[in-house]
């Protein structure tokens, strides 16, 4: 391992300390309990919302495909008029 690689490795290893900085950031402007709760809630919101949207879309898409294939209850397609 040459000096350049060692230096790169040393720099990368400093990333170990980054989570500590990130943890400190959540209360850096306010150490109140409300702020901590707000952080948890908004983290849950921003994590869950994309999953919920993706899940809903996949569920709806599968249901629509099943309807078109005739497996499920048939509903008249509304989008075949102009395409």
């Amino acid at each position: 391992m040459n000096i350049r690689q060692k230096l790169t490795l040393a720099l990368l290893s400093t990333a170990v300390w980054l989570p500590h900085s990130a943890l400190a950031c959540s209360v850096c402007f306010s150490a109140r309990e409300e702020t901590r709760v707000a952080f948890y809630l908004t983290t849950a919101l921003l994590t869950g919302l994309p999953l919920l949207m993706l899940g809903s879309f996949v569920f709806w898409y599968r249901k629509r495909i099943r309807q078109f294939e005739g497996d499920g209850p048939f509903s008249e397609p509304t989008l075949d008029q102009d395409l």
Partner: protein
Amino acid sequence: MESAFIENKNPGASRVTPFLPNGVLAMIFFVAMEVMFFAALISAYTIVKSGALFWPPPEQPRLPVTATAINSLVLLASGWLLFKANKSFSVKGGQEAATRLLRLSIILGSVFVLFQGFEWVRLIGYGMTMTSSTYAGFFYLIVGAHGSHAVAAIFVLAIMLGKLKKNQLGQSEFWASQIFWYFVVGVWPVLYILVYLN
């Protein structure tokens, strides 16, 4: 890019039917992106609010809660009229009713935006500006972002109305524009509760 097609085995239906046009799919992706944008704004607002000792700040004017609640009903009515317009558009011979309902929906949407503008002018007159406090900054950012989306959606609906009058409106493009407007209508109650009632 091709539309998504699937073989339709239902009796009476055409053999190959598009089940999700590209325009609708693109609008779904766009709205999902916008949902995340507003979720980020809501998150930032919630965290800043939780760290404040007084919210809203004592020196800032109070927001017109009741008047905006009525204005919110106007927006919801606009969404309902668009839903009814789609119902009329889907049935044979319902184009005239759809045109009338879509026009009404656009008018109500415009009333909502104009009232919001009127509200802003009054608040600025009372000294509540983008730089007067964090509270005011968030108010104009969140409500302004929604307002700009509402203006864009009204513009889209107006184009759809023009096409409908000329009998050139396709079901898929009407559906895509509806998704956009339903998003604008659907996100507003959340913003209203968050910004005006808390």
